[in-house]
């Protein structure tokens, strides 16, 4: 069949330019997109440095003499001092001597998420060791230059104070509140900025401990280059790994409303709990989520044009927990979009409308998607833990059955525990109680 499709596509000879004015080939052909076994693209191998007390991974790509370096701390906003989530951001921004790193051509950036944070840059291969030596310096003795520190605080203050940021924060907090309203510090209104050098030092001491970090190198490196680059890091004391348990989603199911007049559309998220990344159940959960998103895309985008995209998301990054599908719709179409959303989730709950061939197709697609993530080597450390085993994960994808999908979906999206989170501009007069008890989320205080 595949060769037939190929031949037909090649039969372009009688083409006449113009929309729809092409002369068709004699045979009519409707390709069967489900019928062909699709092998995933070959994966790029992720190497691990052994023996090493540190988590060090690398992916080789020798096209150009360039290396991406990413330092990941398993430490995020949840670990920041209460009420001062920006302390971690300030720590990353001021710990290293940026002027000297930038002199090497690096443009370092830091990213802080709920459960992890990272510091990353790219350098030309000959500058790799010099760059890592500077990073080691920052880890041993944070730079924390007084002038830089004062400037950074001003920049953070300027970036967080304003009606737009406050409205946005309200929308993003809505998702967290819908699952983790009981967790102190996670969703309480952010206190006025009160960050001292001592606070940053203590935050850094907890998060920047070597045992708490993972390192990835992607690009023009091999084992010898990675060993050489890591030499100054290896010399650091390992200290203690940050230990804490991630919170479980516990707050009440129902409808959570977070109106704001900043977003031009209505953002709808339907969430369930129980998604656990990094565990054996992850492939089945990914698979179930991708099936639901596919079906929602079909009904909400391709058939009706109600939204541009339906996207899956996790509220707590690597800690998992609340898994959501989100979409933006026009305010006047909120009600009809919510109806479709619930209809599809109910359909999956009751009937699991996934024929065997479809399941096989989506399973392969989920597997390919997991593998392409592994290609983005810079991101490897953000998803893996010390026990991470790419081959085992891949095998798990291969073994997935329809029953795994049903089971994962039912674990995550029990109708009694679903949360509909609505933010942005929407019709507040809608009878939201149709979809469960309503909680209106108050805006954060400036």
């Amino acid at each position, binding site marked *: 069949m595949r060769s037939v499709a190929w031949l037909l596509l090649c039969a372009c000879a009688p083409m006449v*330019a113009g929309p729809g004015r092409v002369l068709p080939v004699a045979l009519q052909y409707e390709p069967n997109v489900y019928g062909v076994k699709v092998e995933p693209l070959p994966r790029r191998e992720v190497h691990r440095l052994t023996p090493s007390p540190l988590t060090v991974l690398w992916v080789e790509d020798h096209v150009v003499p360039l290396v991406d370096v990413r330092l990941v701390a398993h430490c995020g906003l949840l670990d920041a001092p209460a009420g001062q989530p920006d302390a971690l951001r300030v720590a990353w921004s001021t710990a290293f001597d940026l002027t000297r790193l930038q002199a090497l051509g690096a443009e370092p950036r830091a990213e802080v998420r709920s459960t992890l944070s990272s510091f990353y840059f790219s350098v030309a291969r000959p500058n790799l060791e010099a760059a890592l030596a500077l990073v080691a310096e920052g880890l041993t003795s944070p730079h924390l230059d007084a002038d830089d520190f004062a400037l950074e605080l001003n920049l953070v203050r300027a970036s967080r104070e304003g009606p737009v940021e406050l409205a946005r924060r309200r929308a993003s907090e809505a998702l967290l509140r819908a699952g983790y309203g009981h967790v102190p510090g996670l969703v309480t209104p952010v206190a006025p900025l009160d960050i001292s050098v001592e606070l940053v030092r203590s935050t850094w001491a907890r998060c920047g401990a070597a045992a708490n970090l993972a390192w990835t190198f992607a690009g023009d490196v091999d084992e010898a280059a990675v060993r050489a680059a890591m030499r100054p890091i290896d010399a650091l004391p390992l200290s203690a790994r940050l230990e804490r348990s991630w919170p479980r989603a516990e707050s009440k199911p129902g409808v959570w409303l977070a109106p704001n007049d900043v977003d031009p559309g209505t953002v709808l998220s339907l969430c369930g709990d129980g998604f656990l990344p990094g565990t054996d159940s992850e492939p089945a959960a990914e698979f179930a989520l991708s099936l639901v998103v596919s079906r929602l895309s079909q009904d909400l985008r391709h058939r009706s044009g109600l939204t541009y995209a339906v996207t899956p998301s996790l509220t707590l990054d690597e800690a998992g927990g609340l898994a959501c599908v989100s979409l933006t719709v026009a305010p006047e179409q909120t009600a009809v979009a919510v109806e479709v959303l619930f209809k599809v989730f109910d359909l999956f709950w009751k009937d699991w409308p996934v024929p065997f061939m479809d399941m096989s197709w989506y399973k392969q697609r989920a597997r390919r998607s997991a593998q392409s993530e592994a290609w983005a080597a810079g991101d490897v450390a953000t998803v893996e833990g010390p026990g991470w085993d790419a081959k085992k994960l891949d095998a798990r994808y291969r073994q997935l059955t329809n029953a795994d999908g049903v089971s994962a979906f039912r674990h995550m999206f029990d109708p009694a525990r679903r949360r509909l989170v609505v933010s942005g501009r929407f019709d507040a007069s809608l009878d939201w109680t149709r979809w469960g008890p309503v909680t209106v989320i108050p805006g954060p205080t400036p």
Partner: protein
Amino acid sequence: MGLWVVVALVAAQAGASDTKSVEFVSLSNGMRWLLVPRAGEATNGVVVVKAGGIDEQAGATGVAHLLEHLAFAGTPVVGVYSWSQEEDLAKQTLALIDEFAELQRRNKALKPAGRKLLARIEEEEASWRKRTSSRVYQGLATQFRVQLNAWTTKDSTTYWGMFPPEELHFWLAAEAQRFAAPVFRDFRISRQIVHRERLMRGDPLDEAFEGLLAEAFQGCGYAWPTIGLEADLPFLSPSQVSTFYERHYAPGNAVGVLVGDFDPAQVKQWLAETFELIPARPVWPRSPAVLNRPQYLVAPGVEPWLFIAFPRPPARLRSAAAWRIIDALLDRSPSVLDRLCDGDPCSKVVRFQGPGSAEVSLSGVRLRLAPGQTFETLEAAVFKALRDWKPTEAEFAAARAARDVHRLQLERDGMALASALGEALVLQDDWKWVLAPEPVSLREVQDVIDSLTQGRAWVMQVGAP
């Protein structure tokens, strides 16, 4: 001192990109291709058409982007059970949508005749949908392990694919087919999806920025956003899209680039069997962007922001190379703009560039007023910082090293390289500068900085209290 020697060595090495490994191919219908063979990796291919927002007419803004979406709806071969059964239905339905769009423009769509027409369109669409599927093209590509995407800018539209080497012929054949004959299936749904995409522009200052562009580029195609204006987008008609396609999707107005694992001789043969079969057509001339004389503007907004923008030369010009070094200097931390926050009050600063890059454009910053600050004091502070800005040799060297890293990143990333080469070739008829080191001196950079004066700036106050 030793540190700067290291940087200089690396800069020299990074600048040694091998442009000889890029092969130029010219087809008889005027289409041009660049082939960059690289063993052992997935292949990235792009077709870049010199058709973007700048080529749209007032009243039909957003049409370039809508056409890009419709190009995924299949061809007379892909997505059809029987084209002979579908063809008349397609023409009829699209003609009815044209008619309805005209009623919408005249505000008569809700009248009885309009309602009747809409009901008929819905019937025809349902009937058409029974004979076709707008999703088969994408589905077939996925079956062949081809990832597809596309994007539209003010200057061009790029169709991208990434695939294993053995699927190259499929990609060429499928791309050639939709370039030659896209069918506008599910037209109204695609138009509404694009309209919903407009809702996702989360930045409340987008409207203010659109106002700035409208004034700065009044009278040319850079005056509106690529996604289209709210006044036009919901009413775009099939005939407007068709006209745009006929004018701009000519082989001589497009280029292709392949980066990856292939045999160039084989590719040339396949190009002759696919893209070269598309008949040559005249190329519709592009009207250049014209930047009007600077003005001082005031616009409404939810919070007070000050926009300051300067003319930026087209990407190909040597003076644009100096601008790229300025970008790198501003990417540094702390930059001269960060230093505005050395004391109180401190404004949030966001840089912007646009609307395009092939023509004269704008580069600038927007700054949010801090409590107690006025537009006047903030504006004075920015122009003083620019006046006093004298990058040192060390900062200049670091910025050049950062540019070299950017170029290496571009070379490594097959998709980015293919797109950059394609855009350079189709927009500027020259691609070599993309890979070559740029011989810019600190003096040239300083000259550009010195030209960033109040007299040359577009300034806009947004959301004045």
